[in-house]
């Protein structure tokens, strides 16, 4: 949400740098899930991924006066998480091979891999957010049909609406998302996920 309201950015940055926890909360809500998702895609361990992300936020908080843009904060958080994932991964590898050494520099290969997973994490966030921002009437249908993979009939049962209604809402939801393509701009991206599904279902 934050990235979409650029007019509030200076205010938010101001609050962050003065140590306002409510501002941190906004930032946290904005980035937490994507960072955990990203960390998880690097190390495949949810508990450890959460641990790494919390640590990244505490380190950012210590340096909070040094940032002049939200994009810079996001980049910093991603970098901290990437590096900690590498340390974790490397420690695990070392343990398996009974090595004690820990490398300080990240191999290029690892950085390239991490970069691609960051893009995935960000794209998936946009998709997820588009679902969440739909009117609940449409969102629930989309969630049950595409995420829980229920059939039209099961979705109708779950929501206590007619099957025809499920179909109508699904179409309307996809329409809403398509219309966002037309007015797509940097801060308002589109849910291709549903569009892809819309073609096949």
């Amino acid at each position, binding site marked *: 949400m934050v990235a979409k309201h650029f007019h509030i950015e200076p205010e938010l940055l101001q609050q962050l740098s003065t140590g306002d*926890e409510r501002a941190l909360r906004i930032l946290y809500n904005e980035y937490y899930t994507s960072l955990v998702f990203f960390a998880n895609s690097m190390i495949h361990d*949810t508990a450890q991924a959460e641990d790494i992300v919390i640590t990244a936020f*505490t380190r950012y908080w210590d340096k909070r006066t040094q940032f002049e843009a939200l*994009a810079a904060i996001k980049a910093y958080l991603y970098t901290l998480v990437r590096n900690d994932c590498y340390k974790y991964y490397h*420690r695990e590898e070392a343990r398996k091979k009974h090595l004690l050494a820990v490398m300080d520099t990240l191999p290029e290969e690892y950085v*390239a*891999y991490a*970069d691609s997973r960051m893009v995935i994490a960000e794209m998936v966030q946009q998709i997820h957010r588009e679902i969440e921002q739909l009117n609940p009437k449409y969102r629930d249908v989309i969630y049950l049909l595409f995420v829980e993979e229920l*059939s039209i009939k099961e979705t109708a049962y779950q929501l206590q609406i007619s099957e025809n209604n499920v179909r109508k809402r699904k179409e309307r939801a996809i329409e809403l998302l398509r219309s966002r393509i037309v007015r797509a701009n940097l801060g308002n991206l589109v849910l291709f996920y549903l569009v892809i599904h819309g073609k096949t279902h």
Partner: protein
Amino acid sequence: MISEALLHIITLHLNDEPLTATQEHALQEWADTSFYNEEALKLLNDKEFLRNAIQQREDTALAREENWQKLLQQIKRQPAHSTFRPVLLWRQHWKAIAAFLVLAAGALWIWHANSLQQQRAHTNRTTSQHISPGTNGALLKLANGTLLVLDTMKNGIVAEQKDVQVMLRNGRLAYAATGPSSGVPAYNSVITPKGRQFSLVLPDGTLVWLNAASSIRYPTVFTGKERKVEVTGQVYFEVAPRAGIPFLVNANNRAMIEVLGTHFDVNAYENENNIAATLLQGKVRIRYLATGNHASVVLTPGQQALLQQALNSMHLPITVINHADTAKVIAWKRGIFNFEGAGLYDMMHELERWYDIEVIYEGAIPDIQFFGKMSKSVQLTDLLEGLKVSDIHFRIEGRKLIVMP
């Protein structure tokens, strides 16, 4: 690093929207930069990958609040503008231990200083055998008594029964009516042994997740004025709302939970002292099976009701905990062990169910408290390596884990 402009181009590309020459060029350049970028583009075009990714984000979001509290505690401990790099306290412990060994999942263990001193001496030996963690799977018991093993079955129709088809879709069981109900209810059961967990969609659309060593019995078609199911073990429900048709959960033949469209967890393992019902959304009423509604309690989201399993306990009041740690309660659904504040005995119960082992105590049960979380996908031996640090002595014989004094 991530560029918003690039994300925008990828979005357009995946939507088959026309790209300008500059955009086309930028996309191509990015994809050519590394093999992984090319792979990422393919993954983002893959339905199944995206479905799993969204599902994973949904699950991740469940612990957001819990971890926010943790973060808040941590930053409050730090003086403003500290020159020290802030590190979570529990991570420092973790790092100290990691000098000696690291759990495969990076769990962390803090132990009672007292019990550490009391339990000195002899080092323990585990055999080198591997006991693997549990996986997805279950048994399906049909109305005619036939038992089907669902672990290895592929997507498709699993069984045809009177009036209904049972099918598997992405590892989840679901029902479809094949004709009008003949009115006589037929019952099916899904049973997870130790080392398995499973999810299904009941005929009314209710979503159900079963933890290891659990079961649910339900009619293949819900008819009449109520929807009644029976459960044992630990089960999480997302109940489909039905005006005027309550959803009733009989837990362990001991507690009755009446539901009005909601998300909740029942933990009714026979070998636990209490039956715990935890509400995440909606509203439930809970009572001892043997008593009437006058002795019931109504839960609001975030509350947990505890009913004792001891004989004659139905005359005791039901305990209600107001701010239950809901993320901890449903950690199992997210593939995590959450041992925050758990004693050894409680922890071993969970390990018994997930690794299909039996835990035997040769002496008194050590009084140790654990903190931390870990993935449920680690090998038992790796997990036990971590326990050595807290000075617990044990040995493995077959599938028996023997805790020595």
